[in-house]
């Protein structure tokens, strides 16, 4: 007995992304999705129209990728097994090429149909006997070659008891064609019944030409919306300069292996991720992080592939290459985000699945009503039939649900792309939608509001001392260079920045909890807190007031005593990022409550909060406490966004409604959080929220117009305005309106690309 088909004994799940080709609207998408969901062993299937992929979660014990691909092909669309060897970058390049080819073919067909339209007009103006046959030939050409895919897909849909926009267009043009065919070869059938043998070949040609023009515009829009992703792919350099022995070799980037040593000259793009082994430089990481200032790098520092080396040459050892590289991870993250579905999409999906059969029913009803109305008001059966027929075809044509299918995915794509441009990676439609609902922003202190690394803020020379600030700093740095304490590191770093010469250290002793003592450059030094000074009988009273003021500002002061006398004091603090205050003001201006969470004591926390412009502070919380605090805010009804560093704050990010991970350098591709802020700047939080709110507005506008279009278009096409105003749409005008509605939805989404984010 085999295992049950829906559950694997192991419960193991695998996820696969299958490229799907040939989908044109929401109905196509829901059809492929339904076909996949119906497969045994499939627990989740999400098909994305814009990305042309199906993301399927399945049980490998029951379903196989081959069967999934087969299931998609059964619905009449193309599907390929994804290639394992392709990195996200190569995969994106392949998709780009395919999209480009599709666009080219469609454009060629659309142009040919356009020429056919002009030819048909010219021919219909001529009164020659061969006219019907020339028009017939043109119609066959357009239907069988240019519009072939419409009919093939409509047929495939029909055999699966489903219908999509192709069904509507195929039914409309097919009916018009058959009618005209009978009128051409057996006009007696009509004339004997008093019906004029009218020809609709022209309408068929024009409708297909307009549908193709709509397809071309959509394909172009698709390419434009994925522009941000393509821009990222283009960042990858083609070659790398590898050091082999004592030779420099230019090799393709794909052949670089972890451990290879590479050389990068000024102005060159860094080919892969790695760690500098020799040399110094400033690296421009703006293309990945949005950070405009070049970042100083020296031996031991990590560099990211695709960033630009500005000032110096350096050698570095490759660490992550191919699919593991930061760039590949960002591309994968963004691609997954763009192919995910926003919850608001469910509405469009539900409507489009029942839409087509309802429209066909409406069209048939329209035919009957028009026929009877025209007949009982004195028309001959012939004129009644012709009029009813044209109106019914117009209803079929105008009702194409393309705009509805494009409303949400185009907005998600453009918005995630726009976000990436300013260094905000939003992981998917759902996150995008939730970010806009946020009411409270909780900020972690260290590394989020502040730089995350202590730095020297004040250097105070003791009254009466003959030393300068630099002398004091150089002296302290000489001894502290032996220490690994963060405060010591800050002092040494500042001395290095000021290029101060350090004296030789003759002895060094660390005094736990107090500081350090020793001899440097012949001077006996004690560097530490008041307790250390008192143990050394050094009087700190000349600086006591100043020390107390510094503590009130959230700074940590260390005294420096030289040869038994107080020489001065150095204050160290984790400084607030230059951008934090303005960013927090911006959040407040957006109507958000801002809360700071920190493990620091109340006094330090308060001083930082004051400086950053935050009113609500929760101090002295441990990481677990952060989770509880967020849960408390949520129980009060707040929709909480937590901004943290993505590593220490991962549990809090997960608890929050929206987790925003602030990453810099290689940490930008962090897995934690719904949103990754690639630049170390809180301004990105406000930008993410603004972007999300605007996107939601765009989606709602799109859905509104798509619905309104159908709500107005279908009755008008059916002729409800005819009795009062004599207004009726011909099938040709209906097809132009259909193309226009898709176009306007896509254009509205593209406006997000230029969204001004403060």
């Amino acid at each position: 007995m085999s295992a049950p088909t829906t559950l694997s004994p192991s419960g193991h799940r695998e996820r696969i992304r299958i490229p799907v080709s040939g989908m044109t609207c929401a109905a196509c998408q829901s059809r492929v999705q339904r076909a996949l969901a119906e497969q045994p062993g499939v627990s989740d299937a999400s098909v994305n129209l814009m990305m042309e992929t199906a993301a399927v979660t399945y049980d490998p014990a029951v379903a196989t990728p081959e069967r999934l691909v087969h299931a998609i092909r059964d619905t009449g669309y193309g599907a390929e097994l994804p290639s394992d060897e392709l990195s996200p970058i190569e995969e994106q390049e392949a998709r780009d090429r395919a999209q480009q080819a599709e666009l080219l073919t469609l454009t060629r067909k659309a142009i040919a149909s356009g020429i056919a339209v002009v030819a048909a007009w010219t021919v219909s103006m001529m009164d020659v006997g061969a006219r019907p046959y020339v028009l017939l030939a043109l119609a066959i050409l357009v239907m069988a070659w240019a519009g072939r895919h419409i009919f093939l897909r409509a047929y495939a849909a029909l055999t699966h008891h489903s219908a999509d926009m192709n069904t509507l267009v195929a039914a409309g043009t097919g009916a018009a064609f058959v009618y005209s065919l009978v009128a051409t070869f057996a006009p007696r059938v009509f004339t004997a019944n008093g019906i004029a043998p009218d020809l609709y070949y022209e309408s068929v040609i024009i409708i297909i030409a307009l549908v193709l023009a709509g397809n071309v515009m959509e394909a172009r829009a698709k390419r434009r919306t994925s522009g941000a992703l393509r821009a990222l792919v283009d960042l990858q350099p083609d070659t790398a300069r590898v050091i082999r022995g004592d030779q420099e070799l230019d090799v393709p980037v794909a052949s670089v292996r972890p451990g290879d040593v590479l050389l990068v000259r000024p102005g060159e793009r860094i080919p892969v991720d790695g760690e500098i082994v020799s040399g110094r430089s400033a690296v421009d990481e703006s293309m990945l992080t949005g950070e405009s200032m070049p970042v100083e790098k020296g031996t031991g520092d990590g560099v990211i592939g695709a960033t630009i080396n500005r000032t110096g040459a350096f050698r570095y050892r490759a660490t992550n290459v191919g699919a593991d590289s930061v760039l590949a991870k960002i591309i994968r993250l963004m691609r997954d985000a763009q192919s995910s579905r926003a919850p608001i999409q469910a509405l469009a999906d539900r409507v489009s699945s029942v839409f087509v059969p309802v429209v066909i029913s409406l069209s048939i009803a329209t035919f009957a009503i028009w026929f009877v109305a025209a007949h009982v008001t004195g028309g001959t059966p012939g004129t009644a039939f012709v009029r009813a027929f044209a109106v019914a075809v117009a209803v079929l044509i105008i009702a194409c649900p393309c705009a509805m299918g494009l409303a949400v995915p185009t907005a998600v794509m453009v918005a995630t792309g726009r976000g990436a441009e300013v260094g905000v990676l939003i992981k998917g439609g759902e996150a995008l939608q939730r970010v806009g609902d946020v009411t409270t922003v909780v900020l972690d202190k260290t590394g989020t509001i502040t730089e995350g690394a202590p730095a020297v803020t004040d250097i105070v020379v003791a009254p009466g001392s003959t030393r300068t600030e630099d002398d004091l700093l150089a002296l302290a740095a000489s001894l502290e260079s032996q220490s690994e304490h963060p405060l010591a590191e800050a002092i040494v770093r500042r001395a290095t920045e000021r290029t101060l010469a350090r004296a030789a250290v003759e002895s060094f002793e660390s005094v736990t909890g107090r500081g350090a003592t020793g001899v440097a450059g012949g001077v006996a030094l004690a560097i530490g807190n008041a307790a250390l000074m008192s143990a050394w009988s050094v009087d700190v009273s000349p600086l006591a007031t100043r020390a107390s003021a510094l503590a009130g500002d959230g700074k940590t002061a260390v005294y420096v005593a030289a040869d038994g006398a107080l020489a001065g004091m150095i204050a160290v603090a984790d400084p607030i990022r230059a951008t934090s205050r303005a960013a927090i003001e911006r959040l407040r201006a957006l109507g958000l409550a801002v809360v700071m969470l920190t493990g620091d004591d109340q006094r330090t926390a308060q001083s930082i909060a004051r400086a950053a412009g935050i009113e609500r502070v929760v101090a002295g919380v441990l990481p677990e406490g952060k989770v509880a605090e967020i849960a408390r805010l949520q129980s009060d009804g707040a929709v909480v966004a937590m901004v943290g560093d993505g590593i220490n704050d991962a549990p809090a990010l997960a608890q929050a409604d929206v987790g925003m991970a602030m990453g810099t350098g290689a940490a930008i591709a962090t897995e934690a959080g719904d949103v990754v802020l690639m630049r170390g700047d809180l301004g990105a939080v406000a930008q993410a929220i603004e972007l999300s709110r605007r996107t939601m507005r765009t989606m709602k506008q799109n859905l509104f117009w798509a619905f309104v279009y159908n709500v107005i278009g279908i009755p008008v096409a059916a002729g409800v305005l005819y009795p009062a105003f004599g207004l009726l749409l011909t099938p040709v005008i209906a097809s132009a309106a259909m193309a226009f509605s898709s176009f306007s939805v896509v254009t509205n989404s593209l406006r997000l690309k230029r969204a001004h984010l403060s």
Partner: protein
Amino acid sequence: MTSLDWIVIAAALAAIAIVNWYFFIAGRRRT
């Protein structure tokens, strides 16, 4: 209204019934 009108109405109702049966009922039953 002539018998032709009634025939058209009856045919239309039948066609609507077939369309809805095909897409909503037969489609569901098949799966």
